[in-house]
């Protein structure tokens, strides 16, 4: 009846000439099939998204208190010192993580594709993807143990090396707390980014590498003139993904330090969470969410522009 697959053009031409009500009626089963997902998305995704936009203009405790204040929350954000600190913390953190989570996976992937032994390169892939089985929360808990001032792995290691003078309450000192958090999960590769970059490196045709080595290009030349330029798209994607993840995920901060000591590890998303669920300022929290959303959107667009511009030029 509606075997009008996109590619069989004769059918679809016939259909598009029919009047709209008739076409709607013909597609009734299709709409029925889409009813469940569309309802779910409208209810649990679109409604909260618009609710956030709308309620950022209100003082709202999530319940009956609901007072229109216009753009007051946004003005408050401009002068909110906590938010300013949180934002600058986030910028540093995201830059650090984007570099780390692009360089490390690229480095590992580069090593792996350089191996001649197919069996070994397969096993190394498995080995580096393995940490994925450890639940994220466990990462944080294990790193809390690593930074533990009394019996932590890091301090014990320093003592073992005779560097007792450098032992430290890593998470308790406002000067080191943010650095400590930036290194959480350190040598473990971000699975998705690693596989994306690896996939990019693997699609470089073998002949390109061969002709480069015939021309006498060593490892480093090949790296900078072939591998990095040819995987630019994957690298950009990995960077955007890291940026988006790191901007909106705050479970790390919540579990490890809860923003402290002081506000030294506060980030906007955590401030949003606290405004909403500790202080019941749902309106203010929504305003923070809107600012984050706009910022992430802008950064993604800029990032895509820059990388596609570089590709064209």
């Amino acid at each position, binding site marked *: *009846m*509606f*075997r009008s697959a*996109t*590619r069989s053009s004769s059918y679809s031409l016939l*259909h598009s000439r029919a009047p709209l009500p008739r*076409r*709607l009626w013909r*597609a009734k089963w*299709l709409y029925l*099939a889409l009813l469940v*997902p569309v309802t*779910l*998305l*409208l209810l*649990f*995704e*679109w409604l*909260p*998204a618009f*609710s*956030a936009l709308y*309620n950022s203009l209100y003082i709202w405790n*999530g319940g009956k208190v609901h007072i229109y204040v216009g753009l007051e929350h946004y003005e408050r954000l401009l002068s909110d010192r906590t938010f300013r600190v949180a934002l600058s913390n986030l910028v540093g953190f995201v830059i650090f993580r984007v570099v780390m989570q692009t360089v490390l996976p690229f480095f*590992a992937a580069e*090593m*792996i594709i350089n191996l*001649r032994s197919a069996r070994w390169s397969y096993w*190394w*892939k*498995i*080995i*580096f*993807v*393995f*940490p*994925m089985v*450890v*639940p*994220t*929360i466990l990462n944080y*808990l294990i790193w809390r143990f*690593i930074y533990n001032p009394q*019996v932590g*792995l890091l301090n*014990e290691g320093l003592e073992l090396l005779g560097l007792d003078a450098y032992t430290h309450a890593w998470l308790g000192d406002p000067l080191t707390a943010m650095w400590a958090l930036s290194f959480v999960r350190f*040598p473990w*590769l971000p699975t998705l980014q690693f596989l994306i970059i*690896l*996939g990019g490196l*693997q699609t470089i045709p073998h002949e390109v590498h061969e002709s480069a080595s015939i021309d006498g290009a060593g490892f480093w030349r090949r790296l900078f003139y072939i591998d990095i330029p040819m995987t630019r798209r994957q690298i950009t*994607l990995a960077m955007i993904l890291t940026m988006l993840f790191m901007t909106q995920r705050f479970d790390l901060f919540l579990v490890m330090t809860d923003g402290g000591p002081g506000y030294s590890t506060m980030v906007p998303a955590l401030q*949003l969470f606290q405004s*909403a669920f500790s202080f019941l300022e749902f309106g203010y*929290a929504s305003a923070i*969410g809107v600012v*984050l*959303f706009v910022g*992430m959107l802008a950064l993604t667009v800029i990032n895509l522009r820059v*990388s596609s511009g570089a590709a064209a030029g």
Partner: protein
Amino acid sequence: MRKRLRYSLGNRDLPFQAVLVCFGFVTFFPLVLVVITSLKSNTQFYHNFWLPELPFQLGNYSSAFRIIWRYIVNSVLYSGTTICLIAAIASVAGYVFARFRFPFKTVIFLAFITLIMVPGVLTLAPRFVLVRDLGMVNTPMALISVWVSGGLVLSTWLMRSYFESLPQELFDAAYVDGAAEWQVFTYVSVPLARPMIATVAMTTLIGTWNDLIWPLVTITDKSKMPLAQGLMQFSSAYETDWGTLFAGYVISSIPLLCVFAVAMRQFISGLTSGAVKA
């Protein structure tokens, strides 16, 4: 000359292998230490931080398991239900988007795809209010409904592109043989889409298994908590009992380890096949 010599010795891989071994060592060292510590009593731990020590305290595992098992069961149920629902709904929706032309198709598809740009942190607070007003707080429904709708966005997109990549001849052959549309879907399309369904299931599993924030705001009852949230409880309850604590950590990694052992080959080849392009 030198190059030929290195090839003939077959150890051209050596420098790369060496780097990789160092890298692998640093990767696994904390995990190994966690396993070692999980077999110690507190006295053994304070006495000897680095090395394993006899006797192994297997009792740590049984006392940790008594607490952790419930969280694991909960997580398996919640994530399992979510995966089944997403796989079913996303295959149907992806199939409809890929194979048919109908009025407002673009608009409806945009309603799916634009959501990729909407961050979860923006919708967190209003979504909580919504779920609370629907009376779903502290029920598994709060988790499953939101996980399903959140996961549908990407999954539908993936399924759609997969179904679009299947050759038209395949469907024509089924139609010629007199198959109805639902038969083409169940007996031809879904079996062919199994690799993509596996990818969808895997990403959903990892996403829901690791979600901490959403359970934290919606689930208060200890007996209903999923693993991530439960582990947080567990870690504050056993803060100084290192052996039991780490035994619990090891136990809670086992479920994903099993999945990893079974499905890893497909997962890696699926994602590295160059299918993911910027």
